[in-house]
């Protein structure tokens, strides 16, 4: 009995030793900053002088901060109207790329290419496309008689502009969906064909359930990414000579407001509190998605 325990202990020690580089990195560079930020969120801290304990004052202030709510709304907007349509779009492209046509690998490369463009460069490029008077998008819209919005200056059109731009960068999602699609066993489709299922039925009842684990993964990663939305919104306002947040703070996203509080207003404590609220929101949403997943995610062999 003791011999076994001893052996186990030894193995544990060896194991810990082997992962110690990671363990060290995790403790020093991840866990400790996270815990520090929790501490800072309960203080008034300006980066230079030592933090002053204020209890939950930052959280109380946050509850009254209308700009915080606005930034949260903007972030939710881009999540709801950006993330899900973009996932659907990526799936559609993946379905197309999954067909057996000539030059497939070339198409795949082309659809993936925009993903390689850095966010800042891509944003600047899109600002030209979205130029209200000379931009390609409005020229096309005008040619077919549709209204030509003032994309970059009208507070109502800024978020849609960013969402539109987001479709361009869905290459990674597409590739991941493509991988999932290629994992769906062919025999299901054969069996369905014999039973006389239509293409829609095959998609609805075979493809979608079969790739649902990938959808779950992409939804969760997308949620996290979307709540940290920053660069594109920052660049849009900056290069238009607008102040952070753009016209009427239409593109003041949560992460941007957090950044402004931390590095412009030097309210590091408040910014930390905002970070923790963000963490809690994303955490809860992730749990909700996970809980609901038993209803719509199917793993091979189950059910």
């Amino acid at each position, binding site marked *: 009995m*003791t011999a076994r325990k*001893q052996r186990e202990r030894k193995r544990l020690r060896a194991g810990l030793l082997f992962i110690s580089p990671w363990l060290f990195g995790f403790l020093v560079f991840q866990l400790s900053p996270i815990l520090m930020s929790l501490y800072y969120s309960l203080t008034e801290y*300006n*980066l*230079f*002088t030592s933090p002053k304990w204020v209890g939950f004052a930052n959280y109380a202030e946050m509850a009254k901060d209308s700009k915080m709510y606005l930034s949260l709304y903007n972030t939710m907007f881009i999540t709801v109207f950006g993330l899900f349509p973009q996932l659907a779009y990526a799936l559609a492209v993946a379905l197309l790329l999954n067909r057996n046509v000539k030059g497939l690998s070339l198409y795949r490369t082309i659809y993936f290419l925009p993903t390689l463009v850095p966010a800042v460069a891509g944003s600047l490029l899109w600002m030209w496309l979205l*130029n*209200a*008077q*000379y931009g390609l998008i409005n020229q096309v819209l005008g040619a077919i008689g549709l209204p030509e919005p*003032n*994309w*970059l*200056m*009208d507070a109502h059109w800024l978020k849609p502009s960013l969402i539109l731009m987001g479709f361009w960068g869905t290459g990674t999602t597409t590739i991941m969906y493509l991988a999932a699609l290629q994992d769906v066993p062919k025999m299901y489709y054969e069996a369905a064909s014999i039973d006389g299922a239509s293409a829609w039925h095959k998609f609805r009842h075979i493809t979608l359930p079969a790739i649902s684990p990938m959808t779950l993964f992409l939804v969760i990663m997308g949620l996290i990414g979307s709540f940290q939305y920053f660069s594109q919104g920052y660049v849009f306002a900056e290069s238009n*000579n*607008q*102040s*952070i*947040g753009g*016209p*009427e*703070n239409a593109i003041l996203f949560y992460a941007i407001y957090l950044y*402004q509080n931390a*590095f*412009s*207003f*030097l309210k590091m404590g408040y910014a930390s509190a905002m970070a923790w609220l963000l963490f809690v929101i994303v955490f809860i949403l992730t749990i909700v998605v996970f809980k609901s997943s038993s209803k719509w995610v199917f793993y091979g062999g189950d059910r």
Partner: protein
Amino acid sequence: MLKKGKQKKSFVVLLAILMAVSLALSACTKSKTAEPGSTSPAASGGSPAAASEAPKKKVEIQFWNPFTGDGATHLDSVMAKFNESQNEISVKTLSNQDSQKQLTAISGGSAPDLVITYWNNIGPWSAAGAVRQLDDLIQRDGYDTTQIIPAALDRMKVDGKVYGFPISMSMANKLLYNRKMFEDAGITAPPETLEEMFDIAKKLTQKDDKGNIVQMGFIPDYPWIDNVFWPIIFGGSWVDSNGKLTANQKANVDSIAYQAQYYKEFGEDAIAKFKSGMGGLETPQDPILTGKLAMMIGWENWYVKKRGEGKEIGVAPFPYPQAHPELKGSGMVSPVAMFIPAKAKHPEESWKVIQYLVSEDVQIEYNTLQGSIPILLKALDNPKLTQNEETKPMWEYYESAKNPNLKGFPNSIYINEYLQALNEETEKALKGQISAQEAMDNVVKKIQPIADKK
């Protein structure tokens, strides 16, 4: 028995590690608390004496700046001359250090010795204890601060105390106008008053048959919403001596209402649409170069080669409100600041470098290179500037830089929040969502509590 012994051993190791870590940590905090002491007048007064006893060793000064490209090269060349001129101090410049990098270095405890930064960082950073106050050095050495352009030096002050020195300044106090557009419209002279400017702007604004603006006389918030320039033109201010915010006083409100007038006259949507098609500032599609926009606020470093006598862009003093001729020559000053971080190791040497950089010849050389305005009053009359044909486009700026009506935004710990609030509310007023008075009342309501707290 064996097991117990091993456990004990690993426990001891753990304890040792913990102790080492806590020791290292306490050492860190100790050195942090000890350093500010070295910036006390007594300590800094003692160091030159100590230096003269021992054989002199060159002190190396780390000098950070946010510049890139030419801006950085110009500073480098000035500092290279300084390094050659003496053998006590060796200055090492490091460019491309933006505000965030500066913030990180200073708060991380490894501050450079001297830093160039944007003037509005001085307020929050000094209030946070990151910037060395300079009054003791100024007094000790009898440095005469009145030789510096007051509007530039004022930006370096927080609650009346000096936290930095300007190295150069920029200034918006002129009206730039497209000569050809004026001629075509039969306008012989640039406007003198703001009221005249509005009339001329109406004459110079044209719409096509669909109602789209194709040419504009003036856009008050081009190229950006300026919440400092406009109130200054109307003689406004932002805070009084009792710390009460004054953004909602009449002069400030008038300045917002004046700008809103343009939006009322020409239509918010129409202007927004017109603006969206304008090319970037000083690009080949620049609206004032292409004849789409007739007038704009004039900074000293814009269109340098294209403005002045016989050139396509005319320069005139910025108009003043008709009812207030005493405000003639008003304008906004935006200096570039240099400061010594509170934790810097060689404040004495850094102070010497500052004094070198604000000396007359260096000011002239540096600002000629940068195309900015010297911050030293006497330099403005120096023949090296006023009779140098190369700096000709700057002459009228040098002259007007002496005007006492030049002002700037007061520096404070809450400056960035104040400016942000002004921006947001001014935008609402320009769009006609609220009145100018409401907008400025909102700002005061929002920022006064923050100002009182700090």
